[in-house]
């Protein structure tokens, strides 16, 4: 089925047009927060949007939300927080670009500037860890007490508030993004070599190699039941089964949303087995996992590849942002 043949929800999308590439996205209750390459955060609610100058002299490289605060890291070396009311302030400053970030719903934040990782708890107390090489990706374990750091030749698991020695998970190559399964049993990284690598932490130690992508995977999302990991990097959404205790080892992934364009962003719905898939040609689909049925959210838009995609906490709205500053919010019909 081609994208244009799919039934659509095009009418349910409120479009926005910003001045710069959308580099990140998060939700502050019913407000979508868009991080922009011109340093601004655009807050969109209903049909209205307002800009906050979060990084007046910089580019926002990374963004995340804990539901109350929209946290952004920039090439100005600043970590800024923007609230739903548009107020913005500097939370921390670093020497160099802040280009890796993780925000836990409980309010703690971790960010990295090359090798240096700073953990900042909800009260603002900081702990610092220097990784063996540049940290490209950060992810909190579900409880928020432990961090996974992706770097060259593997990942490091770090308890910022414990004296225990960080645990090193080795695998040769350069690791980019990292994610932690919802039950905490698996850590998965995306790699420079167009593959994913997974480590099983319980009950036994094991490696999982997930390869065959034509491009780097830069977006990963877990289904709400934790049984599936959907990924970008191919001309389809590649979905790995993590429902059993051994993970995807020996099992083929599922493929859905097959099109002749690469998937750039993926986002699982927070409560149902529906995944939003966004493509380099601007198209966005909603795909139901059990029957692979598709709904068109955005048609192909030339020069407007999708760069950011996120559901709100309840799964009623889906926001997206694109390379040319176009953006939108889908509200699902009730």
């Amino acid at each position, binding site marked *: 089925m081609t994208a244009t043949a799919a039934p659509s929800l095009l009418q349910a999308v409120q479009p926005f047009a910003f001045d710069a590439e959308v580099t990140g996205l998060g939700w502050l209750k019913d407000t979508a927060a868009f991080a922009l390459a011109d340093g601004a955060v655009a807050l969109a609610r209903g049909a209205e949007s307002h800009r906050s100058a979060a990084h007046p002299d910089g580019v926002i490289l990374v963004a995340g939300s804990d539901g109350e605060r929209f946290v952004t890291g920039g090439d100005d070396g600043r970590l800024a927080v923007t609230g739903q009311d548009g107020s913005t302030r500097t939370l921390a400053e670093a020497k160099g*670009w802040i280009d890796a970030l993780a925000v836990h719903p409980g309010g703690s934040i971790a960010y990295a500037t090359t090798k240096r990782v700073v953990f900042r708890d909800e009260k603002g107390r900081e702990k610092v860890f220097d990784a063996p*090489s540049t940290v490209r990706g950060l992810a909190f374990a579900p409880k928020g007490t432990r961090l996974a750091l992706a770097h060259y030749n593997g990942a490091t698991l770090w308890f910022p508030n414990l004296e225990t020695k960080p645990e090193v998970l080795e695998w040769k190559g*350069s690791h980019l993004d990292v994610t932690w399964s919802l039950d905490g049993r698996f850590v998965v990284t995306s*790699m*420079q070599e167009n593959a994913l690598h997974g480590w099983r932490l319980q009950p036994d130690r094991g490696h999982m190699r997930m390869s065959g992508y034509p*491009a780097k995977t830069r977006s990963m999302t877990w289904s709400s039941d934790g049984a599936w990991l959907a990924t970008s990097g191919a001309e389809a959404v590649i979905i790995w089964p993590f429902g059993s205790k051994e993970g995807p080892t020996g099992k083929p992934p599922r493929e859905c949303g097959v099109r002749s364009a690469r998937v750039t962003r993926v986002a699982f719905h927070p409560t149902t087995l529906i995944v939003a898939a966004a493509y380099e040609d601007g198209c966005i689909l909603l795909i139901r996992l059990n029957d692979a049925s598709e709904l068109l959210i955005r048609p192909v838009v030339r020069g407007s590849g999708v760069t950011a995609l996120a559901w709100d906490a309840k799964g009623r709205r889906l926001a997206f942002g694109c390379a040319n500053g176009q953006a939108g919010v889908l509200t699902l019909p009730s």
Partner: protein
Amino acid sequence: MPDKIPVTVLTGYLGAGKTTLLNRILTEEHGKRYAVIVNEFGEIGIDNDLVVNADEEVFEMNNGCICCTVRGDLIRILDGLMKRRGKFDAIIVETTGLADPAPVAQTFFVDQDVSDAARLDAVVTVADAKWLSDRLKDAPEAKNQIAFADVIILNKIDLVSEEDLKAVEGRIRAINPYAKLHRAKNAQVPIAEVLDRKAFDLDRIIQLEPDFLEEGHHHHHDEDMQSVSFRHRGPVDPEKFMPWISDLTQREGPNILRCKGIVAFPNEDKRFVFQGVHMILDGDLQREWRADEPRESRVVFIGRDLDEDAIREGFLSCAA
């Protein structure tokens, strides 16, 4: 698809005058905006330009190719810089004096995101006219930088005699006869000779003739680094040539720093042009042979301890 951003790699041994050249490029009136990737914030930084600090994080690709090293930091920085697309016209990467240019160059071939957004324009090496001969003896890095270069600025010529200058040029030519060589004082060379060279553009590899500024160079062979070139006055058989060049670069890749070639295939009106960095090869059928051009095949290798006879024999056995 917007134009790819050109990237110039500036190398040179410690003290050769890299930073002087960089400052000259940045201060000259050219109406262009540069993003400059440096290893230490030195005495550079013009308001108009964007300066990014890099840390030369070289890593090996996990793809079974032993010499395939890339600059991980460069991949990361270019990813970030591309979000500022439109705010600068070109990128200059200054390497440290001891750096091997290969990982920088390989980054542009190996990483898809980088090669989609940017193109390697040229490797420019600044060399110290007074000290280069000594460095070629004791510093393998200096030799790599000369061997790898598309453009060589022989700097500080005011500090040596014409005779010494000829001697050092002879040494450079023994290693790399194909680079454009410029003599300079205080790194004063026309900017057009440094930037926008398109040295890695297959369409610009027009001919593979040595660049001699003047006649009368007497060649002395460098002890371990050299260039070898072979010509076959006719086409080669692609069924033999492609496996041969691929096998040679896989086997000898660690020793081959650069290679280039223009070859003719039978019953093919287009020239096949290739270039390579260590084990990485890039080649394509390019423009048609002109009526006045002899349809011949020519290959050039610059490297260390190359077995000239074996390469010649292998190449000539590909004759169609």
